[in-house]
């Protein structure tokens, strides 16, 4: 009786472990089986590289959204990564213990702020600011720049959370050796410690990239969402994620399937990014 119970529970535990594998499989199956036929019907080339998205006329080209996502994410990384890296360096090598005890949990808490709150902050603070800034250049408040700024703020805690431990994991002897050779504190940190934490730094950046590309609600609240090729960083833009949320509410037929196909494209991008992330993280262990 006792052994039966042991065996039964072992099987139950095994079953629960397999659920996450089943979930991934289900997600792939459902997305691909609903998205890929639409891609085929539209034509892979015309879907991925078409420059016009006009569901009313049955024209479905998501190239503007792909470019939009790449621009917004790229600019967000350009703004956010230097700040995040320097802050991580500060936390690991410059921060007095009393300040650290206070700052570190604060930054961790901030990683949990919901994206709608960030989005709302974007609407009431960043959009007017960028509008004033861009006025001389016929810029809009809802633009690539606004979305990128907001995303840059949102990915700060994410990147810092990965990079700071990576910097701390570098053996203290690297830093001490550099000091002993006569380098200053700053040079030791930046020329000896930081290069040794390279793969952790890259992993942090890639994680930030994934977050930025997958972010939906905060972006659609500030990006303007015009489905056309982006014309400049002070003009509106629509991302892949935004395309899905904005039109799914009323879409039907091929239009709906094209939106799901947009999700498939996003999913593939994210899978590639995740693969890069786990490859980078794995390198640190070895």
């Amino acid at each position, binding site marked *: 009786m006792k052994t039966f119970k042991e065996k039964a529970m072992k099987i139950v535990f095994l079953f629960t472990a397999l659920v*996450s594998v089943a979930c991934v499989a289900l997600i792939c199956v459902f997305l691909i089986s609903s998205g890929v036929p639409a891609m085929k019907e539209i034509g892979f080339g015309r879907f991925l590289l078409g420059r016009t998205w006009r569901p009313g006329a049955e024209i479905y080209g998501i190239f503007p959204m792909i470019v939009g996502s790449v621009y917004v994410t790229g600019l967000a990384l350009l703004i956010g990564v230097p700040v995040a890296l320097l802050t991580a360096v500060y936390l690991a090598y410059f921060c007095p213990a009393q300040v650290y005890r206070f700052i570190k949990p604060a930054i961790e808490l901030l990683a949990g702020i919901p994206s709608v709150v960030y*989005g709302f902050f974007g609407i009431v603070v960043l959009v007017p600011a960028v509008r004033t800034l861009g006025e001389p250049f016929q810029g809009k408040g809802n633009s690539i720049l606004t979305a990128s700024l907001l995303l840059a703020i949102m990915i700060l805690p994410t990147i810092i959370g990965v990079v700071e431990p990576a910097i701390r994991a570098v053996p203290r002897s690297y830093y001490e050796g550099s000091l002993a050779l006569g380098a200053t504190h700053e040079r030791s940190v930046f020329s000896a410690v930081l290069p040794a934490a390279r793969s952790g730094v890259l992993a942090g950046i890639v994680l930030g990239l994934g977050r930025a590309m997958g972010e939906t609600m905060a972006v659609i609240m500030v990006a303007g969402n015009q489905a056309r090729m982006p014309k400049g960083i002070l003009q509106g833009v629509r991302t892949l994620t935004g395309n899905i949320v904005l039109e799914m509410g009323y879409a039907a037929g091929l239009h709906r399937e094209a939106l799901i196909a947009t999700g498939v494209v996003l*999913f593939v991008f994210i899978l590639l990014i995740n693969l890069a992330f786990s490859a980078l993280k794995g390198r640190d262990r070895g």
Partner: protein
Amino acid sequence: MTEEKKRRRQERQRYWTAWCIRAQSVLLRVAVHAAAAATVLILGFLIGYVLIRGVPNLKPALFSLHYTSENQSMLPAIVNTCTMTAMALLLAVPEGVGAAVYLVEYAKKGSRLVKLVRLATETLSGIPSIVYGLFGMLLFNNWLHLGYSLISGSLTLAIMILPLILRTTEEALLSVPDTYREGSFGLGAGKLRTVMSIVLPAAAPGILSGVILAIGRIVGETAALMYTSGTVAKIAGLSDSGITLALHMYKQASEGLYTEEAYATSVVLLVLVLLINFASSKAAGRIGKKQG
């Protein structure tokens, strides 16, 4: 004369190099401090701004039992959020804890199955919430004919928080010293008994911290719920469509008509999530201290 000139030039050069290194160090130090200050200031400004603009807008009408377009009450949304959280946890916690128990206590370390599950978990944790939303809509709303309902939403969220629960539980189980297990075996307890009455209770604070973190994720979630649980603003049963607090706030903020109410909702949402995350790190801290 030429000797003298050469010596002087060398000296000047050495002085110049030293000056450059000093300048570089100072610049780096300034940059590091400026970046840290910027991070703290931006994030502090965000919270401060929302609180200062939001708190004066908190009015009793915002907590009326029934939502109308005049009172913009968030109470139905809060109740739905609670129902949704409870349902999602009920599904995901036993599932995630069971999976972690299998990985840590039963499976052979480094076996192919463990690697597969770990790969699946990592994949799940990287998927953006909008993709979960699409998947939930396709599977639960359409294929299983659940329609826009709290049950569709909580099933979707359960899958979304599964990797979080699994990973934190795994870490908590790994941090339980092997002597606990050996002691239990030595007293004649079986594997199951050891896991259930020795290992899991010892790992409870770590698991709890993960669960609280998951609550924070659920409360703040929007993109995964928009097309699974829908946006009907009333207190909903499990099979009805019902809006959650974060979606309620999205609607208010993006329509642009109810900015004052949106400020108030954002205060409630922000304070709630910050409290939840704070509780989570307190729970995690307890386990750290116990072993430290």
